[in-house]
């Protein structure tokens, strides 16, 4: 296992970089979409809530592999040529947006209604209330589930290897088929995934520790 790591570390690191770039772009784009969806889910209007709910239901209720295949094969059908890596980021983004919207929705529901009433009384617009009052608190409240979601996306990014994106998983497959040492190679890849995820989990625990205090609900 360590021999594989030593002999193939340039390719493995390149694969890992792609894994990180794809996952983190999806997380960042999904965050924007997820926040908007969470606003949609908590909207006063049923006409806004309903489609957002349907979106969330579909993307949370079907396997991400199936979503990836659907995006990758469907877009060319309707005349949109798309590179595998773009399809990968798009699918992971659309998927994580649904999961993140649910995390944010739950966070928003934890903000005391009094704060929002007070903001309205003070003549602060709905949009400003969201931006300045609700969301800063929501981000702090939802840090632990958000970290879990980042880890989930990092792990799920392994399946974009099926559409030939050369991330860590794909690179490992290539090394395994060249060296005829699948066990050692996949163990090495597992170790890399594990290391990244452990670092993420620790980082989040540290941030959470630092940011507690001054929370709306406490």
């Amino acid at each position, binding site marked *: 296992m360590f021999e594989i790591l030593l002999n193939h570390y340039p390719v493995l690191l390149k694969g890992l970089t792609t894994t990180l770039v794809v996952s983190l772009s999806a997380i960042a784009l999904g965050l924007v979409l997820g926040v908007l969806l969470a606003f949609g889910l908590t909207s006063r209007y049923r006409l806004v809530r309903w489609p957002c709910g349907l979106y969330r239901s*579909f993307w949370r*209720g*079907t*396997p*991400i*592999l*199936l*979503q990836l*295949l*659907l995006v990758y*094969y*469907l877009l060319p*059908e309707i005349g949109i040529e798309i590179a595998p890596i773009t399809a990968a980021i798009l699918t992971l983004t659309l998927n994580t947006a649904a999961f993140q919207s649910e995390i944010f929705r739950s966070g928003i529901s934890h903000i005391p209604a009094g704060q929002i009433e007070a903001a309205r009384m003070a003549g602060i617009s709905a949009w400003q209330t969201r931006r300045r009052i609700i969301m800063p608190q929501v981000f702090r409240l939802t840090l632990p589930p958000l970290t879990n979601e980042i*880890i989930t996306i990092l*792990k*799920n990014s*392994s*399946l974009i*290897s*099926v559409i030939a994106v050369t991330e860590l*998983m794909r690179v*490992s*497959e290539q090394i*395994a088929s060249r060296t005829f*040492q*699948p*066990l*050692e190679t*996949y*163990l090495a*890849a*597992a170790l890399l*995934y*594990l290391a990244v*995820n*452990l670092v993420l989990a620790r980082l989040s625990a540290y941030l959470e520790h630092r940011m507690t205090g001054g929370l709306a609900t406490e």
Partner: protein
Amino acid sequence: MFDIALLWDVRGLILQGLWNTLWICFFGCLLAVSLGLVLAALRLANPRLFGYPVACYVEICRGIPLLILLFLLYYGGPSIGLRLDAEIAGVTGIGLYGAGYFAEIYRGGFKSIPKGQLEAARMLGISPWHALIRIQIPQMARLIVPPGTNQLIILVKESALISIISVDDLTKNATTIVNQTFQVIEPYLAVALLYWLMIELVARGGYALEKRLANRQPRHVAQKDNSHANG
């Protein structure tokens, strides 16, 4: 645009995929639920001996993708003399992976039971084993059903990955149909709908179980508590 007749023509493949997904998920989840309980029980019984290894196991399951585990079992296994059919590798992979998560869910349930209850049980001369069966597990059951249901749903969805190690499950057969008919939307959407249905059934089952346990348990406990308070 959506061609139902096409789906009728390939019903054999869809049903075969559904059957494979169902039985592999069933046994995979069964393994996850039971192995998870064993791990949690070991950790509880002897924290000094098993605490660290079980914690490591949990961290590994949380930190590596299921796909890597499946590849290790299916492609890596033969190097150490472990030759598994793809289906069996699928069941084992889902089971081992899920067990890490279930061990943690059980632990959460155990931890939420006040220590005083166990001390009281020991005082009364109730054996630890008896306390586990009669005091801890019944109360725990209610608490672990919601996260347990969530985890089962995740495992059912993740089971789509077994198609990559060449199991003829729903996802693999959907791709086969796509390649045969050159139609993308119908097979994939139909299969997505089937997964959705399976997941909805698991979720409904979870709710029903949660309700049953909730109806039975607290009234009983509450009555007892009251009688003590009054007495």
